[in-house]
Structures are given as C-alpha cells and as structure tokens.
C-alpha cells in the first residue's frame, strides 16, 4: 500500500549501505530528495545510475555518502565534468563500476523478469568488460560456431528513487514515456517517489493516458515536493533546467571548500 509521507520520512526509508537506483537528469531526477538524504546522511551507499547521472551523484559523492558507483557516465553536461566525482575517482575514495547504458538497462530488466542475467551484444574487447569481473562472457547456446555473448547479472536495487509530475491518492504515478522509471520500480525492492502534486481521481481511469502511469503496486511511498527536480527541469513541462545554477555549482564544487559552501547554502537548508 502506497503511503503519502513527508520528504523527511521518505529519505528516512533509505538506510546506510543501501543500493539505490537513481533516475537520470532528463527523466525526473529527485534532487530535493537527494538533498534531504544528505541532511540525514546514511553512508556507504551503492548508487546505480539509470544509466547516467549528473549533479545528484556529484552531491552524494561530495557529501561522502557513496562507497560504490555503478554508471555509464557522470557529467554536468554543458557545465562540464562533475568535480566531486572526478576527484573521488582520482583519489580512489569510491569504487567505480563503469558500465554502458544498455548494460544497466539490461541488468534492471533481468531483475524485472526475475532472471539471473540478460545476454547483451557488444561490449566484448572493451575496458569496461575487462574491469567487470561480475559480468561473464558465455557461448551463445544456439550457435554451432563460436559466438561469445556477454551475460549481465541482474541488479536488484534496495530502493529506486525518482521525481514525477503527479501521483493520485492511490499511489499511481505518472511517468509518461520515461519507461526506465517503470523498469527501476519493477526491479527494486522498494520505490520512493517525489511528485510535483497529487491529483484528484485515479490516474488509471483515463485510458488515453493510463499507458504512462506506474501502478501503485510498485510504489511504496510518495512525498509531495514541488520543484523537486530543481535545478534540473521536468519533461512534463513544469520548469526548465536552470543551467546557470548548475554552472554555479560546477564552479563552486571545484574545491572541497566551495562544495561545502554550496551545500551549506543550498543543500542543507531544509526543503520546503
């Protein structure tokens, strides 16, 4: 049963050491939730970017909460590289599990399907595969001649987190065309969602738009957090990405002191 809770309560459901799947910048990235997680400070997180990330991961790394990072990429886009991520990699303070986008999608799909792995083409001969002893190259059992294919093991996140435009009071959540959010939720043991608003009625009752709804069965708790993706924008049109703010962050986070100053000013303020 989906519970509607406060942002504080939502973040409190993420314990130390959790494996967290995080939505990408373009699909409703839960920035307000991340700031609240940083305020509460559960450490030792294993973050899985679905399939890449930006400022959200840089903040969590900078705050010292991340032990392991599994991602296809981390970037601040036009604002350049992610400074805390780059620093942590250089210093070896996080364990980096470099992946490629479809491999992360495949690993979550394996969890969605309840199978131990998904076969995936490509990857063979890359430095990625070389550095992923958890991935295995196997022979295609249907081929008579040598045909190696990579088997990507399932990722079952403890928690999936994202920000969506709306939920109804039953816990159904609008995800539109961002079906990676559904995949994350199917795969995860627990799904926590922040939304811009709660709407009247049942989102599943309008057949025309029901296809873009994640059913409440997969949603454990929802918190209403207007502008919960800022400074990133929402695909549903509520607001655009605030590039100036991301650039400001990129500049400040170049140094540890600047990062702390940014956090103190913007991130450690209790969310509305």
């Amino acid at each position, binding site marked *: 049963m989906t519970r509607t809770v406060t942002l504080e309560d939502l973040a409190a459901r993420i314990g130390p050491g959790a494996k967290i799947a995080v939505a990408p910048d*373009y699909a409703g990235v839960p920035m307000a939730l991340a700031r609240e997680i940083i305020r509460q400070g559960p450490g030792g997180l294993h973050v899985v970017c679905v399939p890449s990330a930006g400022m959200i991961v840089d903040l969590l790394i900078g705050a010292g909460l991340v032990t392991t990072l599994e991602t296809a990429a981390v970037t601040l886009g036009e604002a350049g*590289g992610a400074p805390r991520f780059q620093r942590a990699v*250089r210093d070896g303070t996080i364990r980096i599990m470099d992946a*490629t986008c479809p491999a992360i*999608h495949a690993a979550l799909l394996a969890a969605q399907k309840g199978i131990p792995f998904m076969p995936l*083409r490509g990857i063979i001969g890359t430095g990625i595969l070389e550095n992923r002893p958890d991935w295995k190259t196997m022979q295609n059992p249907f081929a008579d001649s040598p*045909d190696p294919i990579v088997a990507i093991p399932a990722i079952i996140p403890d928690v999936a987190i994202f920000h969506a435009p709306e939920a109804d009071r039953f816990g159904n959540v609008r995800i539109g065309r961002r079906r990676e*959010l559904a*995949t994350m939720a199917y795969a995860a043991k627990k799904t926590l969602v922040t939304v811009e608003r709660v709407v009247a009625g049942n989102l599943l009752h309008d057949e025309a738009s029901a296809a873009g709804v994640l059913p409440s069965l997969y949603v454990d708790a929802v918190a209403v957090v207007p502008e919960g993706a800022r400074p990133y924008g929402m695909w549903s049109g509520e607001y655009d990405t605030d590039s100036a703010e991301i650039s400001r962050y990129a500049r400040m986070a170049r140094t540890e002191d600047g990062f702390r100053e940014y956090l103190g000013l913007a991130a450690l303020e209790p969310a509305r």
Partner: protein
Amino acid sequence: MSVPATHRERLIVAISRLLDGCRHVAVGASSPIPAAAAMLLRAMKEAEDELIYVSVLGSQEHNFFTNGGVELFDCAAQGRIDAFFLGGGQIDGQGNINLVGTGTYPQTNVRWPGSFGSAYLAFLVPRLILFREEHTARVFVEKVDFVSAPGTSAPEVYRPGGPRALLTGLGQFSFDRETARFTLQTIHPGHTLEEIRAATGFTFDLAPDLGITPDPDPATLALLRGRVLEEVSECYPEFAMSARAELGAALSPAASRATATRAIP
C-alpha cells in the same frame, strides 16, 4: 546570401554527405553539428519524397521514442539505426575510442564522464561516424588508455557495426575494418597534410585521390542556414544563436526565416 561557408557549416555538410543513404540517423546528447547534419539530410531528402528519421537524444521535438532510454539501444539492435556518432577523449589509429580517462584505470588522472552507450552502439550501428573537432596529438593517440569501444573485433564477435569515417577540424578520414587503419580522404580548406601529420599521434594512409574537402553548394547552404538552423535551435538554442551570429548581420533571423520558406518545396 553571399556569406561563404563557415568552417562549422563545412563540417555539417561533410557529415551530411557521409549520411547519404541512411533511413534513420540517431544523434547523442550535446552533438549540435551531427544533429544539424542529420536534419540537413532530412530536409534534402524530403524534396525527393523520402522520409528520414532523425532521433536527437534529449530533444522533445526530434525524438519519437516512447519506450524510455533503452529504446535507442533496442532500435540499434533491431538494425533500425543506420548511423550514429561518437567522439572520444582519445581516439587511436586502430579506431579505438576512450571516453573514460587518461592514466591507469580506475584511478585515472583525468576522468571523463564515461562510456555512455558507446561500448554497445559501436558494435551494432553500421555507419558509426567518429567526430571530434579538436585535432591534436593529445586526442589522436597511438593507443588509447582505456577502450570504451574498440575499432574492430575478432571475427567470431557479432558485429554488424563499427566506425566508417572520422571527421575532425582538419580533415576527413575513412576507416577500413579489415586493416583497422584510417585513410585520409580530404583536407579541409586552409589546412595541410603536414599539419595533420603533426597533430596526429598515429600513422594513417592517404587516399590515392587525396583532395580538399569540397565547399557546400549554394542551395545546400541556403537550406542549412534557413530551415535546418530553425530546427536545430529547438535542441541547441545556444549553438543556433552562435551560428547565426557567425553569419553576421547579413543574415538576420528575419532573413533566415524567409530563406526557410523558400527552401521548403
């Protein structure tokens, strides 16, 4: 309309020539020049009643996917994507690209964002075009420090795709999957073979008919400056603005729109 082709326009038109024959061109995020090239191809083919699909990742308007981020990759696996673009912090003479960093992995000295979908798409998209404007020995190295995507694969590896060409700020190369070597095909106006040699950390072959990268014809240029720039501005407003600024006051937005109207049949 007498403004000659800019360097940037030459690159766009060169890429669009490389895309000829494609039915579906996908463009990654933050790739305004490839996006403009794909949109130019689409605009040119429309006159011949041929529909070219262009997917620009991150664009709302030029993106028809409805199955989340994985659809691009599935689409490539189905053979429905004919061309894609990859850059690279490093690209070596065997066509390997590195999007991860320099130095010893994992504690790389310089860390770039990461491999994104390159380790997959480089295997599956038939016409992979490597595009990197900066042509220096820092980028074009003898051997990459990390292989995000290999240039070629062993014969038993399933690989319908791979690099076909490399376009840089200095010239255009083809890539031979058999020999795993680049061949310089044309040199951009104002540059020399010596300059390219000095800026390239690997050896490459020369096309027997090695020449100068041709300038776009006036009709193509008009289409590019009109309709295509309008379309590009939806995804890359800053790029479109700077392109317009470069063309100078002679080509004001109003004039540009007029051109667009003329260009559409």
